[in-house]
């Protein structure tokens, strides 16, 4: 029931974007439909197994002092679809992102990208393997021009080796190829008129576009976007949405953190909900947003009841029952108890 919701979007051929010319060949085999079809009829329990996962994480935990920021038992990200990671503020989404991409080390747990373990693999190596991220607070390189920002994204550049750098004839041809690819992407993201401006002179929204375009220069298979819509005006939001969708058309997998529910509903094929460091639900957008666990996590269990109508004694009994249940379970952490 959830999968065919997105069928019309996929069949649309209105997106006349220039395809990435550096797409690895195996991408053609796993087009968006196959990835999406695989999601049909899956259960919506946290950690459900996917038929064709590109990224798998198991037992990931990260604590800051007494706070268990991330405690993810199991998560699989389906290849070729757009997966949203949502959750209230402080749910641990960005920390989980950092753990997945190698920018932070988990206390425990393992993760696999394309079946390859990422244990003790550095963040830069993770990016070279094809899993590229952007940042919540946009990180453009202010004192480099827009074009230089883009060129930096290309991998395997001979001119980036120290011994070859001072001999321009060794890397000039490759630089031309990289520049061509950078200009193509800049045109697609409508930044081509800005290529000689310092990146620091761009507006907030243009920086978001530049960061996304620069990430594509790496030639990723999995694009991880940390709040791509934060602080972006509605018009630009529409164009960013189009760009994210076009990534899926080209066979890339997208995982993004977002607070904007309209965007999540609009473009995601699968939604993962985090609260207090744990994954509490996952599933197709409509199903997840109607899920009682999700509503409770966002709004509290009594959000739709007028507080004056509650019978104090009933509430007291409920609270006691909850406390009793927590003391019964060994998993209750001290912070959770403190919060209550």
């Amino acid at each position, binding site marked *: 029931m959830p999968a065919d919701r997105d069928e019309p979007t996929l069949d649309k051929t209105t997106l006349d974007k220039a395809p990435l010319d550096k797409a690895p060949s195996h991408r053609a085999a796993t087009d968006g439909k196959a990835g999406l079809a695989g999601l049909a009829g899956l259960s919506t329990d946290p950690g459900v197994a996917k038929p064709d996962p590109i990224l798998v994480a198991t037992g990931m935990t990260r604590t800051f002092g007494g706070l268990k920021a991330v405690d993810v038992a199991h998560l699989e990200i389906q290849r070729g679809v757009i997966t949203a990671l949502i959750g209230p503020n402080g749910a641990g989404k960005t920390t989980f992102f950092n753990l997945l991409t190698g920018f932070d080390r988990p206390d425990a747990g393992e993760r696999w990208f394309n079946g390859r373990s990422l244990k003790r693999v550095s963040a830069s*190596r993770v990016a070279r393997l094809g899993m590229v991220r952007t940042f919540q607070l946009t990180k453009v390189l202010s004192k480099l021009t827009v074009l230089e920002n883009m060129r930096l994204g290309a991998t395997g550049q001979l001119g980036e080796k120290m011994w070859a*750098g001072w001999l321009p004839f060794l890397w000039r041809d490759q630089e031309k190829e990289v520049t061509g690819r950078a200009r193509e992407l800049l045109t697609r993201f409508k930044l081509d008129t800005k290529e000689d401006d310092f990146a620091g002179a761009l507006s907030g929204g243009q920086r978001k576009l530049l960061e996304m375009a620069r990430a594509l220069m790496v030639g990723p298979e999995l694009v991880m976007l940390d709040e791509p819509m934060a602080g972006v005006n509605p018009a630009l939001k529409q164009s960013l949405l189009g760009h994210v969708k076009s990534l899926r058309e080209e066979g890339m997998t997208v995982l993004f953190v977002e607070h904007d529910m309209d965007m999540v509903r609009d473009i995601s094929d699968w939604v993962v909900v985090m609260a207090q460091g744990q994954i509490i639900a996952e599933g197709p957008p409509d199903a997840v947003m109607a899920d009682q666990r999700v509503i409770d996590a966002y709004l509290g269990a009594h959000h739709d009841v007028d507080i004056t109508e509650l019978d104090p004694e009933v509430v007291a009994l409920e609270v006691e029952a909850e406390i009793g249940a927590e003391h019964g379970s060994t998993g209750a952490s001290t912070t959770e108890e403190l919060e209550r």
Partner: protein
Amino acid sequence: MDLITTPLHDAFAPVAISYVLAAMGLNIHYGYTGLLNFGQAAFAAAGSYAMAVTIVSFGVPFIPAILLGLAASVVLSLVMGVPTLRLRADYLAIVTIAVAEILRLLFSTSFKKYFHARDGVSGFTGTFRSWNPFKDMEGTFLSFSANDLWVMVVGWIIVALVSTLVFLLMRSPWGRVLKSIREDEDAVRSLGKNVYGYKMQALVLGGMIGAMGGFVGALGLASVQPDTFNTDFTFIAFTMLILGGAARVLSPAVGAVLFWGVLSFMSVALSELSDIVPGDLLDSNRIGNIRFAVVGLVLMLLMIYRPQGLFGDRKEIAIDAR
């Protein structure tokens, strides 16, 4: 006439060249890569001591001794960089300034058989001076000695070669990665670059250039003394770099020449002034301090009205203000 010739002499003398090279190394560290190295003196000291001691105490020929000096600066880069380059920039600053002081104290108090404490190491210039083609030009040009002329010609050739190398490297994709690391190293990491490796390469390259500064200074003075390499050495080199404008190829050279020229001009001018002005106002003993105060004032004005330095790009500075 002294008002012109003395500043000119000082601005291009071997000591000035050693600062030019030290500042060029710092330009790679700080200007391009954003590494806060407060111990450039350590690289110059390690290089010049390694060269001098291997010649004097172990009879190593001149060229291999130079190579050993460069190797010493590489080892020093690794010692400083391996534990700190994964951490925030502040840690490198702390470690470098500490290592520089430790080295200076080590050279001035320990292993006296080799380092000769405060007297320093001397007697290593024989081979170099024997190659001097200007032996009969003693005192003919700006009253430089024949030895100074020879050191200066070699020194400025090294400066030219290093400048060319830095120019080529910094417009290459390698230089682009360094500049990007200066701006935001997490962004660079997210694009698949091994940031730690690049920082290490920058530290080693800048350190080797600093060691060359040590060689030129040592050959000019014909001795290596620990007190040459106190913290002033590093901070004067930083001053010259910022005076010229960080992350510009020629700014260390121009900054150093101007700095020495102005400093020397001030001391000549002040000493001539002290003959006229009553002793209570301007004592000749105070000239040394007053000239530094005046140079400091000039630098403050420069930073207020031209924060990008002489060669910097005003637009780049404007971005920081956002």
